[in-house]
């Protein structure tokens, strides 16, 4: 029994270790695209090393037994609700002023099609 648990832990760990080299240029490119970032060849080289270093470090988390722990997603335990009512909002014009390009009260972007 003990053996099988340990073996299981080892498998998990080795899978993670294999995952890191998986962070190749292609993976980084896909991730960058998901984040809407365009990376030059030179940037890919630079970021790949830095991302790998951190992912490798994150593997340390696998040492910890988290079996019976619930995740902490937020620190405020009770949701605070409010009435669903209309309220005045007087900053619309100020917010629009920040747009790079405006046509009357519309924010202009390049053609979608």
């Amino acid at each position, binding site marked *: 029994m003990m053996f099988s648990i340990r073996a299981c832990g080892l498998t998990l760990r080795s899978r993670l270790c294999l995952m890191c080299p998986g962070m190749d240029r292609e993976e980084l490119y896909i*991730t960058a695209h998901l984040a809407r970032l365009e990376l030059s060849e030179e940037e890919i080289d630079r970021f790949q090393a*830095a991302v790998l*270093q*951190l992912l490798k470090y994150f593997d340390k988390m696998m040492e*910890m037994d988290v079996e019976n722990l619930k995740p902490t997603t*937020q620190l405020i335990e009770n949701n605070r609700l409010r009435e669903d009512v209309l309220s005045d909002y007087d900053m619309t014009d100020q917010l629009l002023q920040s*747009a*790079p390009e405006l046509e009357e009260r519309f924010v202009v972007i390049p*053609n*979608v099609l």
Partner: protein
Amino acid sequence: MIYIEDHWQGLFLKPQQLKKWKKYANSADKKIGAFLQFKPDLAHISSAEHGELEGVPFAVKDNIAVRPFKLTCGSRMLKSLNSPYTATAVKKLQARGGVVVGKTNLDEFGMGSSTENSSLAKTVNPWDLSRVPGGSSGGSAAAVAAGIVPFALGSDTGGSVRQPAAFCGVYGLKPTYGTVSRYGLVAYASSLEVIGVIAKRVDTARMVFSIMHGQDDLDHSSLEYQPLPEVPEHLTVGIPIECSRDLHYDIDKSFKKTKDTLGELGFTVQEISIPSLDYVVSAYYVIATAEASANLARFDGIRFGERAIEADNPEELILLSRSRGLGDEVKLRILLGTYVLRSGFQDQYYLRAQKIRTAIRMDFEKAYSGVDLILMPVYSYPPFKFGGDGLDPFSQKLADIFTCTANLAGIPAMSFPASMENGLPIGMQFLAPPFGEELLFKACSIFEKIFPAPDSPIYSTEWSE
């Protein structure tokens, strides 16, 4: 009680003094570059005429909105953005008479430990101009240490108030999560961060916090401050046994000295254990970058910020605007955060980090059953040099270990100047249970009596004479 030195009180009501102070502030800031925008009269009209902070100048980190100042977050992306509104925390201080005199430099969007990641300016440490002021609230800490303002606001996501305060030899308070409204704070990692205060005196920090806290309709996660019912006469301080590893020689020396001093001052000092400490940096960076990747998706060049005008379609506009507008460290954290949230990897990274976060909270809960406060170093290194002579970005992240624990657990913590080593200030911090701010103020005040915040070589009050 004296909250603030005489020369700060009602400064804006005394034209002669004010003129001399402005001259001093400008010349001091020329040396250290704490401010991205220094305009003492710009928002004066927004401050009430009376209150505890009547005519008292203060500075605000440039990721906290103050109308009509800019709100650059230290980013090229937002270099021309004017703040359309004012953060609740700032409004509350203005309502008691405080005057915002400028916006301070920071690591872009609060991401860093040296303020070197600002895309807009360089801030140096008032103690040694060849060293970093810490970060990310480096400008706020440097401004206070240089005597330009008695206090400044910062934001603390993983230590960004306490660490620069420690590097600059002043006090830095990270309040309990949720006690200060985040409305008007540009979001980086929403479940971790809180607006805090950097000050030259403990009482100043205490007063500023007492004004800033409180539930806010504009921040769903804000809480009413419910202070612990009583502050014991006699305080017991726990020292985690895990803290003594991998400390720079000067930090280790200061840590030991502080433990001894606390004993002499009448604190009961005892060893405790926070076993999860080994995993906090991993858990912190997984959670912080995951939240950052979502929060920073809003910077697309469409509704505000710098836009790549030559783009032919919306997709290209977003890609180009982000790629040009954001700096390297921000891109790195967005990439990491996007990766750990990708389908297939979530359980191994994000979910596991959140479970470790639970373990950290439980470790602290257990520790506080036996002690009132916990003492830890703030950072594993003393203030370091710029660039290649300093600390590489990865080592900087590992050294966040002592600060980011409080953010993961949501508990309050306060850094204080503990000693001088080789001419540089070294900070330690107390951590308290949720809503235990008064414990922090009490402990820091006792220590302040024997070791007040030392004056940096730039610090001067001559303008007030």
